[in-house]
């Protein structure tokens, strides 16, 4: 590192009051198809930032670029002032990474997975042992330390992968879909632990296609679709901006589905269908009268508040879960 860039880095920090991650116009394509198509975002120290979008939105590619696991085609990416393109190794010194498939070593025990990773990143034998015990404790995996990886439940595997990313006591951790594939109970546990990590000062960047996850964990999030970031803000801001206040949900017995559809179409009430569940959003704020539908057998209407799912729908015209 030359003196020049050292002082650049210093000035940079002073001028911009330290954004931990600064991504500008990031671009990455595979066989001429843009996976990430010129996105820019910033993550501040200590916050939890989320990329919310369906499968194929470019979230994983973005997460991988942050740690240098995927090369950046163009654009600039800095983490703690370090250029990821030039020196991703130095970035990984301060970053914990949890990849989408856990990447646990099936040939090793829980303890060995952690200890050997600690040794690999350069900890001495005794500090790797000490740190292994600390993270086993924190993630409540102590009594499983001698277990083989294949004996663990999905939730434990995910927590072990997060535990491993904490071996280096990183200032920022990057998690690609931390609760995908987990049952609700394990998911809550992962969320709880991530919240505690955040509270201890760790900056968290995560990608997800669960709007509950984004709403629960993220201070700020961006909605990502087809390689682009559509908008960014706190979950509340985004809901206020793009979601209706109230959404009517109509559960319809299959026999009555046609009558309900015809009714809504006749009255020009916009709706969307997910299985046997119809959601009526109306125009933003407007609350269409659907009381007549209650007369039809097998119809049950209820109301819920607008959420990030609706935000995504407004921005893209599609369901988050459609992929």
């Amino acid at each position, binding site marked *: 590192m030359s003196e020049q860039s050292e002082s650049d880095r210093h000035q940079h920090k002073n001028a911009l009051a330290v954004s931990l991650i600064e991504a500008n116009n990031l671009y990455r394509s595979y066989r001429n198809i843009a996976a990430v198509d010129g996105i820019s975002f910033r993550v501040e120290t200590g916050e939890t930032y989320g990329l919310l979008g369906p499968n194929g939105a470019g979230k994983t590619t973005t997460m991988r670029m942050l*740690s*240098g*696991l*995927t*090369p950046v085609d163009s654009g600039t990416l800095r983490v703690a002032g370090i250029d990821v393109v030039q*020196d991703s*190794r*130095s970035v*990984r*010194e301060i970053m*914990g*990474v949890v*990849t989408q*498939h*856990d*990447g*646990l*070593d*099936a*040939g*090793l025990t829980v303890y*060995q997975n952690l200890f*050997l*990773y600690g*040794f*690999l*990143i*350069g900890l001495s034998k005794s500090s790797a042992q000490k740190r292994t015990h600390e993270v086993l404790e924190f993630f409540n995996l102590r009594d499983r330390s001698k277990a083989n990886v294949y004996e663990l439940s999905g939730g434990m595997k995910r927590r072990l992968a997060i535990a*491993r*990313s904490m071996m*280096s006591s990183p200032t920022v951790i990057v998690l690609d879909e931390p609760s995908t594939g987990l049952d609700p109970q394990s998911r809550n546990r992962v969320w709880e632990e991530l919240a505690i990590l955040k509270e201890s000062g760790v900056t968290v960047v995560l990608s997800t296609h669960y709007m509950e996850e984004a709403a629960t964990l993220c201070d700020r999030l961006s909605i990502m679709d087809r390689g682009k970031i559509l908008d960014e803000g706190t979950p509340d801001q985004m809901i206020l901006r793009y979601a209706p206040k109230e959404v009517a949900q109509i559960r319809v017995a299959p026999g009555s589905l046609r009558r309900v559809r015809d009714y809504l179409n006749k009255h020009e009430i916009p709706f969307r269908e997910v299985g046997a569940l119809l959601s009526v959003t109306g125009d933003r704020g407007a609350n269409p009268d659907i009381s007549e539908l209650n007369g039809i057998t097998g119809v049950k209407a209820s109301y819920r508040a607008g959420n990030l799912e609706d935000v995504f729908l407004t921005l893209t015209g599609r369901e988050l879960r459609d992929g």
Partner: protein
Amino acid sequence: MTFSSNEVFKIRLRSITGIWLRHAVAFIRYWKFVITWVLVEPVIVLVAVGFGIGKLVNSVEGADSYAEFVTPGLIMGSAMFHALFETSWNAYNRIENDVYETALTAPITVVEVTLGDVLWAVTRSIMTTIGVASVAVAFGWLDGWLAFGILIPSAMVGVLFGTMGFLFSAIAPHTTFLTIVFTLIATPLYFFSGSFFPLSTLPDWVEPIAWLMPLTPGVHIARGFALGHLDITHLWAAVYMIGLTIVMWPLVIYLLKRRLVK
């Protein structure tokens, strides 16, 4: 996609030993099974060939018995199999099971991961060499202090074939593809590298080709140490092996990066 200056000039020893230690720990966990290949299998071949075929062969150039002639060849064959298997078959599974991907989330580089793997391949070559050589010593087919020198070609075979294995694991679309490593590479080399018979018995036009095969110089050097006869040809053989390794290395790194950093 080629070497960046950061990777070549800032290689960290810890990254390499860290990878090596992971393999060693995984190996030790399953040693009861692996040992059958490190020791039992090559010793069976050694005994069968030494006692069985040895009875039928009266004399081989430079050796007192056929068993003495074949011992260094079998040891090198075993060293080759272990190194090649480690970085083709095992490395392929590590690619597929994200072991390398996880390693690369640590502050280490593809070059360091590869070096750690090759170091482990060499370790396996040396393990099988020590095992089989000890049995040969017990039978009286290997003796003299010079025999310890066999560890040198054994390590070189480990580096060469440990590097070569990645050429296959880095491009393999599935495990069945790796079958060709054994059917088209390892097995022909095992039999046509001067292990079982002197290359001079081959047809005239085949002999020079056999000398160029990558295992041949290893067998040549090992036999030099085993029979206590070394000359300048053994030095050339060493130079040839090192040269082959150096030529393969950049290609291995290129292919692995293409597979792992994407």
